[in-house]
Every structure is written in C-alpha cells, then in structure tokens.
C-alpha cells in the first residue's frame, strides 16, 4: 500500500460489508409473546381441549360455549365433527405428529381425524415437527397429486395489450391459474377482459381471477371473464374479522355465492394478518392460523390461499417465522384443503432467504406452489413483488432442473414467446376494436410485443383504460360477446379455448378440492388424489415431463464446444504455424525452458478459457522467457493432458531443469525436475481470469528459478467469481477432448512454431 490507511475503525470492517448486503434491509423483531410476536408459543395460547354433550360442543380449547366468540362458535358448529372428535382428541399430539411423518399412515386416515381436532390441538401437533418433518408431512398430506403453480399478471399502467401478451406467456410457461389486479380500481373490467383473452392463447384451461372488490369480483365472474376467486379473506380473531368488515357467516355466504355461479373459490388467510391489524390477543401466529383454517374448512371452502401471504414479511421477522409459515400450510392440507401455498409477497430482500423458503414447496410439491408467482417484472406487479418475479423466472426453471422437481413451469423458447405475444395482442386489439371499446395502433402493438415491462411500452394510458373498463361494464359485455368477436376476427382457436373454459362451470367439476385443468381435463383431489406412501409412490416425473424440465435454454454440449473451436481455428491458422520436428530428447543448454503442451493444443483447441488465442499465450511466454535470458522450446506431449505431469515432463526434458506445463484451456504450471508431480513451483489454476501479462511473467519467473533464485510469484487476482459455475461444463468437455487423444507411453515431439502476424 502506498497511502497510509487509517486503522482507527472501532469495529471489524466485515460488519460494514454485512451492512451493505440486501439482507440488512430486512427488519427482524425480537420474540415478544405478550405483544403477539411469537410464531408458535403465544402468551395467551390455550391448551387443547374439547367437551361434547349430546352432540353439542360445550367447551373448546378452554373456552366454554357461552363465551364463544364468532370464530369459536363457527368452528364448533361447522368444523368439529362430533362423531370423530372424541377419538381424535384422545390421541396425544406427539402421536399425531408422528403419524403425519409416517409414510405408512395414509393421508385419508389423517384428514379424517382432522375433522375432530380443535385449532389448539392441530397447532400443538404440527409444532412438534422440525422444518424437515413439516416439509415431508406437507408433501405427503397435500390433496392433489400433481403439483401446480399460479402467476400474477399485472402491469403498472393497467395496459390491456400488455396484460393479454403477459397472460399468454404465463399460459405458455404452464401456470394453472393466473391472477390479475389493478392499479386503479375502476380498471377492473378492462383488466379482466384483457387477461381473459390473453389466457385463451396457446392452450385452453388456464383458470383466471381478477382480484377486486367482493361484489364487483362476483359480477365479473358472472359475466364469464373469470373462473375462480381467492379473495375471501378470513382472520383468526373476532376483532380482526370485524375490522376486515366481515363475519364467518358473511364470508360463508360469499363462498356459497361463488359456487352458486359455478366459480371456483378458495379462502385466504396467513400468519401475522391479525398482528398487522392490531388484534392478536397475545396469541401465536400458528394458533391463530389454525383457527382461520378450521373456519375455512367449516365454511365449506374447497381450499385456501395460505402461508403468510401479505403477512409473510412480518411473520418472517419473528424467530421461527418461516417454519411457522410451513406449519400453517401443513395444517391447511391436513384439513384436506387445497393449498395455494403463499410464496408470493416477497418476505425478504435477500435472494437466499427467498430461495430457501420456496425450496421445500418446490421439491415436495404443492397444489399451487406460489399463490402469485410474479410472471411480470417486479415494478409491474400490482400486488407488490413476489418471491419470484419475471426477473428470477429462469432461476425457478433451473431449480426445477437441479432437483428434478416439478414446480409446474416449462421453458418457453424465445421465438415462440414473441409469436404468442403478438397473437395475444392481435386478438385483443381486434376484440377491443370490434366491440367498439378502443383502437390500438400498430406502434402500440409493436411496442408491447417486445417489451419486457411497462416502462418499455408506448401503449394505452391509465385514463384510456378507465374508459375501456367503463364501456365494458356499461355495455354489459360478457364472455360470449368476446367469443363471438374472436371468431369474427379469425381467432377461432382462442374462441374455442374460451368456450371450453366457460363450459367448465356448467358441470361444476372444478368446484371440487384442488381442481385445475390439464390437457383439457379437470384434475382434482377426486381423480388425482395424492397417494404418497413412500418411495416410488405419489407424484413422480414422467419421462416426458422430465424432458420438459430439463430443456432450459443455452445448454452446452460437445458439438457446441467443437463448433466454437472450429471458428477459432480459422483465425489461429492466420496467426501461427506448428511444425513437428520429430521426437523430443533431453536438452543440454542451461538457459532452455521447455514449454510442454497438451495433445490437442493448437490442433483441436485454439483458445484458452479466458478467450486468449493459444498463439498469443505462446508469444507471451516466449517474451517472458527471453526477458529472463532464456530460450523457449515447445514440446507436445502425447502421454498426458494433465497440467502437473505436462509441467514435470517438460522440466525433465529441459536443459535448465525448469519446465512449464500448459493445457489448451490455459491452465499453466512451472515445474522443476526432481520434484513430486503435484509439488510445483507456481500454478495458474484459474485459466478464465489469467491474462497474457500473467503468462509473460510466468515465463520470466521460470528463468529466475532456473537461475536458482526466488522470484515474486505471480498472483492472479480473483474477485470471487464462481468460476466453476461459469466454466466447468466447458472445461470438462474440452478436457475430455484432450484426454481422448492421449496414448500411453507415446513419445513427446518437438514443435517448431512460426508466428505469422505481429498482433495478438
């Protein structure tokens, strides 16, 4: 160091580094059960208990019937099955916990018992499981065998063209459900129509919801634009419920209303909602969630959106909060509810915390792994950023491939993505124009087709959208109008797809637990029940599905490596000529440094991993050696492609006893005869970041060692790149090409090189 640094800091500077990590933007809260900050052990959590007299619940979890609040009353009336309760409540919680992770206890035996368990008992049982056990139990207990996923499709402008294009992409990616919402409430009808058309592009059967005010959401559903809803929120304390402007009865009424209109519905609840609303009653997150979930089952909801949800960031600020989120999801599936398992509202600024949280759901499967995976960019997500967003979508695809786990998604090839976007935009533009709602210009359509997000579009402005939305409602446009319009515009396939979706409501098949549509068929917990009973059972990838998961873009193979080398070969042919001079023999001159190269050097492989042409590397080595007063002799070895052995073999042939081993990929070593193979003098193991200057200095240093002196070793500085991740696939393929060329006991040969041009 030239300037004199200050060492006055009063703390270890690593803390400064840590302060600058995204993680440190997360807020963490101390455990404080009295004030509701407890994941599993609230100050006022009751002990489990149940008394039934004459078929009536007279006491539940320590509260006598006459003191029941509305939630207790509803649970006692509609959730507790008095025929099962006595048997179920008599089982110790520790036994129930063991049954949950016992692959020999069938799921159905446990869902039966759950009908007789109180909230406190359910909570007490799952609380005994560690995170691993919860994940396993969740995987065993979830209702439908085939896992699925849900996307958010929204944008910052409520631009219908972009909604249609992004909906089509979400469908192509394999999402079973897509959910939209608005920046401006009155745009709901426009958003609904746009996503509805977009989701009909490419394939039929993707369920769609438009999250808005209750009455309006149901109206939009009745117009046929949407096929499901999940905004029926419930809470675990009476005060929070009333603050949410509902009661268990009003929510149950709404649940029946959706079913009566043939619309799939699930409730929503998640840890810490009550804490956020200020009505936690000093009870733990888990106990309150157990109440919410018993309530939802009692209401006859087929499922729940559950697992933190909007409260996930707050739940995660508490010790054990993420384990609690997993535990509440486990209660949901134990209660035989479809579970759209959260993993939506991003609970952390740390990508690591986010990935760690989603992993159990990815490998264990879930009805809907995310109940809002942001298929659009973060800033376009009108719900707030999700755990995974448009930015991180490929990471999710790769995680699926890494773990051979079905997260419900499939890669979309880029040419196809653009085709789908254009098709969706054209279809919607036609409908908007045909129904007299709006006219999209060619420029608008073109800008949206290629846009990654709404910052890049030149399309409808929010005010235009409000007018479109108002007209849809005022003109009472319904899905049949849209189907007819699509058909008039020649979008017959999309018209058929929309008709297929709307016909689902006639039979009501998708009102059963965990229903989605795959390949034109409704599958649910009825006809695709999770039958996990140990290895080889439950959900397994088919060969075809595995192929889809594996097919991410830009994967390297041997042909690709050889193709790239063939391109380099042409430019190298103009730079250098190698000429074999026959078998190499031990040298006699004391200033000679032998550079030993691998079998494919300059004949099959032409560039190092850093991209240097091999001619340039040789030139640099020669410059360095000559600067040190030595001469370079180039020898090709055929018996090995290993750096150390190349170096040692070169040293043994060298008149100075010093040799340099050089692999085609750029890894280099200085070696000296009489040393052990792996005990070299200097090694450049990080070929991808080794510069020509480093090679030159390596050549120079070899001459210093030859003079029996100690040079300053060359240090190749690294910035901590994950070089293995970046290069090892190519390294392995390149190296295999060279090792395949080796021949045991084959003699080395002297190479004469002629540099054909000066530039490197």
């Amino acid at each position, binding site marked *: 160091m030239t300037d004199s640094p200050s060492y006055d800091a009063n703390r270890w500077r690593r803390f400064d580094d840590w302060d600058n990590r995204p993680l440190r933007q997360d807020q963490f809260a101390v455990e404080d059960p009295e004030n509701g900050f407890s994941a599993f052990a609230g100050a006022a959590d009751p002990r489990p208990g149940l008394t039934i007299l004459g078929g009536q619940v007279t006491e539940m979890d320590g509260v006598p019937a006459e003191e029941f609040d509305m939630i207790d009353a509803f649970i006692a009336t509609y959730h507790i099955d008095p025929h099962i309760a006595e048997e179920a409540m008599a089982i110790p919680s520790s036994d129930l916990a063991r049954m949950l992770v016992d692959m020999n206890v069938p799921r159905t035996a446990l869902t039966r018992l759950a009908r007789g368990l109180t909230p406190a008992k359910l909570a007490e049982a799952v609380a005994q499981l560690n995170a691993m056990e919860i994940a396993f139990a969740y995987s065993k207990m979830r209702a439908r065998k085939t896992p699925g996923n849900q996307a958010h499709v929204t944008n910052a402008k409520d631009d219908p063209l972009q909604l249609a294009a992004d909906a089509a992409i979400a469908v192509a990616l394999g999402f079973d459900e897509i959910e939209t919402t608005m920046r401006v409430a009155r745009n709901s009808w426009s958003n609904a129509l746009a996503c509805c058309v977009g989701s009909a592009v490419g394939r039929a059967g993707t369920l769609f919801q438009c999250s808005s005010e209750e009455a309006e959401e149901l*109206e939009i559903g009745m117009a046929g634009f949407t096929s499901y809803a999940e905004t029926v929120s419930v809470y675990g304390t009476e005060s929070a419920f009333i603050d949410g402007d509902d009661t268990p009865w009003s929510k149950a009424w709404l649940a029946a209303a959706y079913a009566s209109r043939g619309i799939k519905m699930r409730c929503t609840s998640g840890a810490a909602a009550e804490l956020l609303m200020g009505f936690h009653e000093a009870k733990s997150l888990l106990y309150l969630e157990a109440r919410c979930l018993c309530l939802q089952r009692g209401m006859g*909801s087929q499922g729940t959106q559950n697992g933190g949800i909007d409260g996930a960031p707050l739940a995660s600020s508490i010790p054990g909060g993420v384990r609690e989120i997993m535990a509440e999801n486990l209660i949901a599936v134990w209660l035989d509810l479809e579970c759209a398992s959260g993993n939506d509202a991003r609970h952390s600024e740390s990508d690591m915390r986010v990935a760690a949280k989603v992993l159990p759901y990815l490998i264990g499967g879930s009805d809907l792994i995310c109940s809002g995976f942001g298929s659009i960019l973060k800033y376009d997500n009108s719900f707030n950023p999700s755990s995974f967003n448009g930015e991180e979508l490929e990471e999710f695809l790769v995680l699926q491939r890494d773990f051979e786990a079905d997260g419900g998604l499939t890669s979309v090839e880029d040419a196809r993505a653009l085709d789908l976007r254009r098709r969706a935009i054209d279809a919607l533009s036609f409908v908007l124009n045909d129904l007299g709602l709006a006219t999209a210009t060619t420029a608008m359509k073109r800008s949206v087709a290629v846009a990654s997000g709404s910052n890049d579009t030149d399309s409808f402005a929010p005010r235009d959208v409000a007018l479109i939305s108002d007209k849809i409602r005022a003109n009472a446009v319904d899905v049949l109008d849209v189907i007819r319009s699509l058909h008039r515009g020649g979008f017959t396939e999309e018209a058929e797809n929309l008709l297929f979706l709307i016909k689902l409501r006639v039979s009501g098949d998708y009102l059963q637990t965990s229903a989605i549509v795959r390949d034109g068929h409704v599958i649910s917990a009825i006809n695709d029940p999770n039958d996990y009973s140990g290895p080889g059972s439950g959900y397994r990838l088919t060969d075809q599905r595995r192929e889809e998961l594996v097919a991410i873009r830009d994967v390297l193979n041997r042909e690709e490596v050889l193709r790239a080398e063939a391109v380099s070969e042409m430019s190298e042919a103009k730079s250098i000529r190698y000429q074999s001079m026959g078998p190499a023999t031990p040298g006699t001159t004391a200033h000679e440094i032998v550079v030993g190269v691998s079998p494919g050097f300059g004949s099959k492989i032409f560039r190092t991993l850093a991209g240097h042409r091999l001619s340039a590397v040789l030139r640099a080595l020669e410059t360095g050696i000559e600067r040190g007063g030595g001469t370079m002799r180039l020898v090709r070895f055929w018996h090995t492609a290993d750096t150390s052995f190349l170096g040692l073999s070169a040293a043994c042939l060298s008149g100075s006893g010093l040799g340099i081993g050089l692999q085609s990929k750029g890894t280099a070593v200085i070696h000296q005869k009489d040393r052990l193979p792996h005990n070299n003098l200097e090694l450049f193991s990080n070929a991808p970041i080794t510069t020509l200057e480093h090679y030159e200095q390596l050549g120079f240093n070899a001459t210093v060692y030859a003079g029996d002196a100690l040079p300053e070793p060359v240090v190749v500085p690294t910035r901590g790149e994950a070089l293995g991740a970046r290069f090892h696939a190519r390294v392995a393929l390149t190296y295999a090409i060279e090792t395949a060329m080796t021949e045991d006991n084959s003699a080395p040969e002297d190479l004469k090189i002629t540099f054909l041009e000066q530039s490197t």
Partner: protein
Amino acid sequence: MTDKLHAKDYPIAETRPERVLGQRGKPLASLTLEAVMDGDVGMEDLRITPQALLQQAQIAKSVGRTALAGNLERAAEMTGIPQAEVMQIYELLRPGRTKSKQELLDTAQRIRSNHKADLLASFIEEAAEFYEKRGLFRKRY
C-alpha cells in the same frame, strides 16, 4: 335425481355427460362454437344448476368432505336467488349493517318462502343469534 354419484363418476362432464345440463336444459354437447355464433347460446345456458351442485355435493360427501358438500348444498339453493339479492343479503350479513336481528330474521323468512331456501334461511337465522350475542348490531359507519 336418481342414483347418488361417487368419486368414480368424476369428472361428471366426462363420465356422466348426460347428467350435465345448462340452466335452460341444454346438454354440454350442444354448447358449440357454431351454436354460440348462431346466437343459440346465452349466458343462462352456461349457468350451473342446483342439480349439478347437488351432484358435486354427493361426490364430495362420498370422499368424506361433508363441509364442502354443505357449501355446495347452500349454493344449490342460492342459484335461484337473483344476483342483486344475493349481494344485498351478503351486505346485511356484514358487521353492523343492521340495527337489530329482526332484519336478518325477516330476510331469512323471505328467502325461505320466495326461493325455498331452507338451508340458507337457517344459516341467516343462526348468524342473527350469534350477532346478537356478540353485539354486532352496532353502527360502524
């Protein structure tokens, strides 16, 4: 309805299509794109019927989902109640919307006589009891 349906009859649209009719009696097979273009299909033909909901309730019950079946049975009654009335009753059931339980009891009586909605009527009456007990008939805004 004749025989009760079970899990093996699911999905009904595929295994028992003859038992799936729209609200005006049209079978699924007649709901084609051509029929839509010819104006032969209206939104009413795409409405679920009480029969369809009760069939789904039977299937839910056959696999032990009695609570879900209960909701589908309430929904079956609700198919006959006009949308505006469904939403008006929902509004009444929200906290503090009525000053006394009588308004809820009257509503229950009305849908019982007008729509033969016994389950829903009892449900509202039950709510009225608990609302009174928990002091929910208080003004909120």
